[in-house]
């Protein structure tokens, strides 16, 4: 009986949490299927009087939304893969090897976490201009690959793995790369999927740098493209709610997919590895 109570309390709590998180999004979604005049009507209505997909078709037909999406996908996927590759190697070295200068290197890397893009954007831009990188996918991918959060997360993860693992492997005569590939990486699934999720989202939503680095309309990424056509609240331009909301609702899908695919791993990763017991 008491257990039943507790269970239903849990579900009530779950529903409350979902409502709080979803409220603004649901409101955006509800409005994205209304005509512009109805979006603004007061008192606000959740169910539209006239249901329309015209905001969505406008976005898809009038703007190169799909190529923006493709650009975003390419840069976010490549950037994330590069981060996974570069950061797992580096974090492994920082987390598990003892060598001179390790603290200095780690300290320097993590300190960069404290410097926002606004502070190094201009030098980065001038450098990219010098080496002819502007307006290319590479100009978005490489700066995003110099990711710090991933080093931060992975280093402390690698550090926490038990020593016995590799020592046993070493006794078996495995080389360091083999240990890294065959033993450490499989164990790191939860940490790696956390990093994948977080960096993919960060890359996907990245705004200021891609906007500055990309010049041609066809090369834009989604957030920059959406910002272009939706107008701005701060400048003298009309703001189009319907299309902006529709564009934004669609832009959520890829990140949700990545999250759904990977969250299983960081949930199950440790549980199934068997080492923890």
């Amino acid at each position: 009986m008491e257990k039943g109570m507790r269970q239903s309390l849990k579900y009530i709590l779950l529903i409350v949490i979902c409502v709080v998180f979803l409220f603004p999004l649901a409101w955006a979604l509800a409005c994205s299927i209304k005509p512009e005049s109805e979006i603004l009507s007061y008192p606000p209505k959740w169910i539209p009087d006239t249901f329309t997909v015209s905001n969505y078709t406008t976005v898809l037909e009038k703007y190169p939304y799909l190529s923006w999406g493709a650009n975003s996908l390419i840069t976010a996927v490549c950037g994330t893969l590069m981060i996974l590759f570069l950061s797992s190697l580096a974090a492994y070295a920082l987390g598990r090897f003892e060598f001179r200068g390790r603290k200095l290197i780690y300290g320097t890397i993590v300190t960069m976490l404290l410097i926002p893009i606004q502070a190094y954007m201009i030098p980065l831009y001038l450098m990219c201009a010098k080496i002819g990188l502007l307006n290319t996918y590479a100009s978005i991918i490489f700066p995003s690959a110099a990711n710090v959060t991933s080093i931060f997360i992975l280093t402390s993860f690698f550090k926490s793995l038990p020593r016995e693992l590799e020592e046993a492997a070493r006794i078996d005569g495995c080389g360091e790369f083999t240990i890294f590939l065959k033993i450490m990486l499989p164990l790191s699934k939860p940490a790696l999927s956390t990093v994948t999720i977080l960096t993919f989202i960060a890359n996907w939503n990245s705004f200021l740098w891609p906007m500055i680095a990309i010049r041609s309309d066809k090369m834009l990424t989604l957030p920059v493209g959406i910002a272009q056509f939706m107008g701005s609240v701060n400048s003298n331009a009309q703001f189009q709610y319907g299309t902006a909301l529709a564009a934004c609702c669609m832009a959520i899908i890829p990140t949700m997919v990545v999250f759904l695919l990977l969250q299983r791993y960081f949930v199950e990763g440790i549980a199934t590895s068997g080492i923890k017991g």
Partner: protein
Amino acid sequence: MKKIIAVLASIAMVSSLFSGCAGGSQPASTASGAASGAASSSASAPVSINYYGGWTGGDLDKMSALVQKFNESQSEVQVTFTSLQWSQMFTKFLADYQAGSTPDVVAMHTFELGQFVDMGVLNADAIKGLNLNAADYIKTAWDGTILNDVQYGIPLDVNMHALYYNKDLFKAAGIASAPTNKEELIAAAQKLTVDANGKNATESGFDAANIKQYGFGFLQNHHAFYQTFALMNQQGYNPFTDNMTTLSLDSGKTSAALQFLEDLVYKYKVTPAGEKSPIDDFKAGSVAMVIDGNWQLSGVNSAAKFDWDTAAYPQIFSQKAVWGAAELLAIPNNKDADKVKAAQTFIKWLSDNSAEWALSGQIPANVKAQQAATKIKGIDAYNSELDYVKFLPAHKKSVKIFSSAAPSPILTAAQNAMLNGKDPAEITKQLESDINKVLAG
């Protein structure tokens, strides 16, 4: 030490690798960056130039269409158009300028001109070379491109405030026409401010805490200062000049302007305090009149489900005046003479063919284009204001003083008046000292 050198060497290698592959795979980027000097001057190949603007939404669509039309109309010049939000576009412009790959045409507002002139990035000779004729342009817009007797750009368009009003609500309240002066404005606004019980602000028992329809709305950010500026000018008073080094504000006149706006919110209660988006409230039919710019015309046209129109900005004080701004096209300094020439060709064409620009609610500064333009609904009131529209000065520090982002002297003043209902005389004093700080800095 050895290690450090090894690391540096490998970085150099890696970075050269990047530049190598980037150059190879992306010809689009190198076209703008590398082609300087004689490379682009061969007779057959078109000169490709870059054009930066700050438009979004419908304006962006229209401008893109115009650029495309230009590109298709001839084969000597090919324009690549980039549009970001204004301040971000300027950052990109200046960074590109610094990197030696400046855009060839840049759009800006007249009040932003002073800053760029002060930086020395604009090519006045290129504008002189166009041999423009003042009579072909709307006078205020033309004057706005000139700073200390030198012309730095070709005027593109003019933006202004005017009054939008909901004719259906006017009819329901028994008001025949749009207000033109202070008394009419307040009377109409009061009749149009209605509480939940259907009583308007002139009736007894009116519940000011429960208003469901407001009479008069306007933006309470920097635009509230723009209105203050207009109302100062309506008293024949404009202390802001292109070359001011200090500012002393006439407390009486500045306060009177601020007081009028404050009264609408706090005394007559016909304007919602802290209104964020008046034009959306207007479109929704919950505010009967709003002050906003011509850039909203096409949006109102497509969203409003009622009968509406625009009227000239009301005359509150002794003479007519309204805030406005003009956009212009300038040519940055560039060693490549071919590109400058191509830029000249393009901006002249754009100005001459700007009639279509009017389709998004703009008023072309080119008189012929303005007259040729298809009149979109509501533009007449704006056109009627052209004779007395007032611009902010093109002072080299105008961008700081009149900025829409904190900490800006005018934003603080506007918000102190509109949101806090502070004493206008005090606001004036603070505004004066804030501006003087910027001027001195």
